[in-house]
């Protein structure tokens, strides 16, 4: 496997194929999050509590992905000269979220299943989460770049705005829904 496929698989995979793979990943991530009590309250946030049903964990993941896709699509429509397809944005952003499975996956291990606040186990999980978060953001960036065909300042500014707006809206929606 080429290393570039790890941070930019979208030159090879996009559209419906990435949507199916990414959706499978999102369902698995949500299920592992439910089993281990790992909440993704937005992209830039992780919490630990076994306090909810599966649909809550699924809603957390779905809302952040959908909002991110909507803001990226809107940016693409406004700024790109290319004929962009919504299925590319939905699919590639879904695929980009796969690394987020790392933290709940590690929490299945008995040593990480329950831990006290500020313990080494907690810092390990947060470390795994930060690695997966950086990886996910790099994937999001490349997904956005390829799906919307944006470059330079337009790409960087609209990407940061999309991330921030989706983060704010995810938190607002989760407050209302859950």
């Amino acid at each position, binding site marked *: 496997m080429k290393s570039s496929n790890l941070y930019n698989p*979208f*030159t*090879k*995979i*996009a*559209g419906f194929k*990435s949507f199916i793979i990414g959706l499978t990943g999102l369902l698995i991530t949500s299920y592992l999050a439910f089993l281990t009590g790992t909440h993704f309250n937005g992209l830039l946030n992780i919490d630990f509590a076994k306090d909810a049903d599966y649909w809550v964990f699924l809603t957390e993941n779905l809302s952040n992905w959908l909002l991110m896709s909507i803001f990226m699509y809107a940016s693409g429509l406004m700024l790109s*000269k*290319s*004929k*962009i*397809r919504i299925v*590319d944005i939905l699919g590639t952003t879904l695929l980009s979220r796969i690394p987020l499975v790392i933290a709940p996956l590690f929490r299945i291990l008995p040593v990480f299943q329950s831990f006290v606040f500020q313990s080494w186990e907690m810092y390990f999980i947060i470390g795994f989460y930060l690695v997966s978060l950086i990886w996910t953001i790099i994937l999001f960036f490349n997904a956005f770049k*390829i*799906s919307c*065909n944006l470059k330079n300042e337009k790409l960087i500014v609209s990407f940061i705005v999309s991330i921030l707006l989706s983060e704010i809206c995810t938190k607002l929606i989760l407050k209302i829904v859950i």
Partner: protein
Amino acid sequence: MNKRLPLKCPSCENLLQVKQLYCENCNTEVTGLYSLPVISRLSTEDQKFILDFVKASGSLKIMAQNMKLSYPTVRNLLDEIINDINNLDTDEE
């Protein structure tokens, strides 16, 4: 050996024009002053892309399958070529 068509003057970097054409069959020579068509001024890769695109009936989906690349990647390549052609047209005007 595939010889590349020179596009720019090695001395002043100006765009070259065609002055002479030659028939290998009957040795006829045509002399005049002709501009190179826009397509010949694109890179070899871009020219190949355009030919493959026409052969694929203008389908980006078929192009993506043939090139083993994703649809948006191929669309972005096409958009870059369109942009290059537009720039060449503007230069010509």
